[in-house]
């Protein structure tokens, strides 16, 4: 029950009234846009940040820098997982 995808924030809307006009983000992924609720995020996102979206809510916010870093980390790890002891030389 955990389908969630990252989408980029293109706009923050509302916030004048928590009941009638709650703060919401418009997020984008490859041209698909959706309004999502921000009730659950620890940190208010800014335009350009990424949000992890689940069931119409943002459940996590990461800035573009964090997102990129993680990807590079992944690449590095794929290249040099050298902390793993090689099985031939235990």
């Amino acid at each position, binding site marked *: *029950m*955990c389908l969630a995808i990252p989408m980029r924030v293109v706009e923050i809307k509302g916030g004048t009234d928590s009941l009638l006009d709650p703060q919401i983000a418009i997020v984008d*992924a*490859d041209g*698909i*846009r959706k309004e999502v609720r921000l009730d659950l995020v620890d940190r208010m996102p800014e335009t350009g940040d990424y949000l992890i*979206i*689940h069931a119409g809510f943002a459940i996590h916010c990461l800035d573009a820098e964090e997102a990129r870093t993680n990807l590079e980390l992944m690449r590095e790890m794929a290249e040099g997982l050298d902390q793993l002891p090689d099985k031939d030389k235990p």
Partner: protein
Amino acid sequence: MNTQIVLDHGSGGLASQELIGSLFLRYLTNPHLHQLEDAAVLDGQAGRLAFSTDSYVVDPIFFPGGNIGELAVNGTINDLAMRGAKPLCLSLGLIIEEGLAMDTLEEIVRSIARACDYAGVPVVTGDTKVVPRGKADKIFINTSGIGVIRDGVEVSATQAVKDDVIILSGTLADHGITILTSREGLQVDGNLQSDTRPLHFLVQNILDQAAHAVHTMRDPTRGGLGTTLSEIAKTTGLCMEIEEKAIPVQGEVRAACELMGLDPLYLANEGKCVVFAAPEKAELILETMRATPEGRESAIIGRVTDVHPGRVVLTTISGGARLVEPLTGEPLPRIC
């Protein structure tokens, strides 16, 4: 005139006749339909005939990229084309819910007329029923069609053989995702558009080039490409090996699918076909398809083998491999 459809429009009396005169005959002009007979009479046709029917119950009836009217025209044209037939004419059966706005009906009829004109396939016989409010959903359309198959063309699911090349005529899942996201409660914005379009010109171009090399053609509508290929695999007992990365899917479509947990392989297409062709003519056919507007994004997506008899095997974008089984039930948005 009434601004909305009332039950009397389906009575077979004057109100029906007025509707036929003021709307259907106005847009769908042709001598056959004008006769208003019990059946249209078509002059002697040479060759084998193809005959197909489909009902269209799409909700919403207007969606990005089209509406139920042109969908109904193109859909049946495509089913005829998939047997290698040149579509000759259509029948049009409307079931209308009382209360439908006359303007809405007119827009649909106009769009049917436009689709027929574009395709060069007239509606030659028709029928209109009106049901009480709440007994239908705005409008349902049935089209049936007759086509003529030229000599030498022998296209069916049973004809696919080992080594056939599998060509897809364009991007996947456009129609299915557009309809799902047009529904109440699932709105997403984005440039999603149904791909509804007729495929008979494409098919005739292919047959002009290499009639004998075409073994099987299918338009992967409901159930999507996954189900269509599974059916052919089951029918032939052969293995369909396809490549995820070769299958064109538009960015927006893929994003919407990820968001809702849907697989583009199982979503409906309304303007795409998959062609099984002998390998020696595959490049020629691919080029022909790409040279036709509705096949511009055609791609070879796989081959027929005998590795896993009766199964469809997908090589994933990450380099893995998995089976593709037929769809079970309606694709639903999920959060799991």
